[in-house]
């Protein structure tokens, strides 16, 4: 993914560039329902442990961008992938925007639009292969037997079926096309 300068600092936004339907699109996505409740108090940002070390991730600003309709800027950004999923903002948001779930909703839309970071894409490949995010090798099972705990299946082939039936391949293929 390309690195971009923070766009709000750099340029004037004109109404023409805005997609006013974006907030409705996000609201329809599972997890995005409460987006329009946000009144920009900033509780999310001040409580965010990611923001405290990297201000590229600013949940208050991201929500504002969605409400304004900066669709492409949000969906093509790196910053939507920086939420660590800690639920600090989720617990404290006075408007119950459920920001952790909201970020997941936005990411789902971004993936369908062909924007998926490489490490996320490899999650799918690895799960298809092993059924787990990490490979259980022969070595692990030798150690397990030595410690007297049950061996693990090195692969769980059914996961591939789950992914196929839920159309993840179509979603990922779409992102290949745009690479």
């Amino acid at each position, binding site marked *: 993914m390309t690195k971009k300068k923070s766009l709000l600092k750099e340029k004037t936004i004109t109404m023409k560039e805005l997609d006013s339907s974006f907030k409705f699109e996000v609201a329809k*996505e*599972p*997890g995005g329902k409460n987006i329009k409740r946000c009144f920009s108090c900033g509780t999310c940002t001040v409580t965010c*442990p*990611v923001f*405290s*070390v*990297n201000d590229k*991730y600013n949940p208050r600003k991201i929500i504002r961008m969605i409400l304004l309709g900066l669709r492409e800027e949000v969906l093509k950004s*790196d910053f939507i*992938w*920086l*939420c*660590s*999923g*800690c*639920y*600090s903002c*989720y*617990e404290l948001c006075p408007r119950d925007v459920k920001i*952790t779930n909201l*970020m*997941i*909703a936005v*990411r*789902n839309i971004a*993936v369908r639009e062909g924007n*998926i*970071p490489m*490490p*996320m*894409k490899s*999650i*799918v490949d690895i*799960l298809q292969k092993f*059924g*787990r*995010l*990490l*490979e*259980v090798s022969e070595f*692990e099972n030798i150690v*397990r037997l030595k*410690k007297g*705990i*049950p061996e*693990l*299946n090195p692969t*769980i082939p*059914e*996961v591939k*079926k*789950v*992914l196929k*039936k*839920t*159309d*993840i391949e179509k*979603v*990922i293929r779409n992102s290949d096309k745009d690479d």
Partner: protein
Amino acid sequence: MIKQKYALFLGCTVSVKGINYELSTRRVAEKLGLKFVDIPEFACCGFPLNSIHHNSALVMAARNLALAESNGLDIIVLCSACGGYLTEVQKLFADKKNKDEMKYINEKLKELGYNFNGGVKVKHFARVLYEDIGLDKLKKFIIKPLKGIKIAPHYGCHYIKPSKIFDGFDDPILPQSLDKLVELTGATSIQYKDKLQCCGGGILAVDEETSVKMTRQKLENIKEKNADAMTLICPFCSIMYDEFQSTIESTFESVYNIPILYYPQLLGLAMGLDPKKDLAVKQNQVKVKPLLEKIDKLYGVKEYVKTS
């Protein structure tokens, strides 16, 4: 109510990187009279897929839940992220609020030959210790109180949050369960700045620099309080604080040397279990030896030193 038998859900990380967590949990559970059933078809919980394709994640989780349900068992998790996500999907069925999602999941499960009715409880092992077995009963198993040992508890995020899915068993802003579990071993649970800070593991794959900066903050805060060790209950938090500790030390030119123990390892020590054979302390990346030596001193013996 205490159930005697649970399905043990390991998930991805514990299976490969957390043998010390798994072994100590199993040994502690044996002592307490809990029985674990291993279901070989259990796979990834689904959580890592949630950011990519919501529908795949839901069905992955529901399939695991259905496997437990068909065995008539509730689930014990060791990974807090697995616990959070499996609980979220279980609640979806229990609350019956989102009919569309339930319908979709059931359709897909049926095609795969499964059926899920929502009748499975998911609980973190630490929550079972705290809530079901209870502090009073646990205290009876403590034969080597860790008196004077200072432990920094790390709750992590998904163990207690989002709080609405965890039936209020602990407070998301001022949690106490892990502190109390630490105290029952005889150790002192120390308070430190930003105790609920996230480990940063959730973004390790996409932005390692930001991730380890988050990890470092807590190591700094704990060092300031001279903790003998940190205790935690999630394998991903352990990757950050234990596995990455030396990387952080060299990157930021600092020294921490803070042993990171899974809570069942800490409890196991106080229960008199063998550090090496039962608790696999050699698998911990930061050496646990200084802590074991300190415990040895309490009892005027040298048994831990020999084994570590």
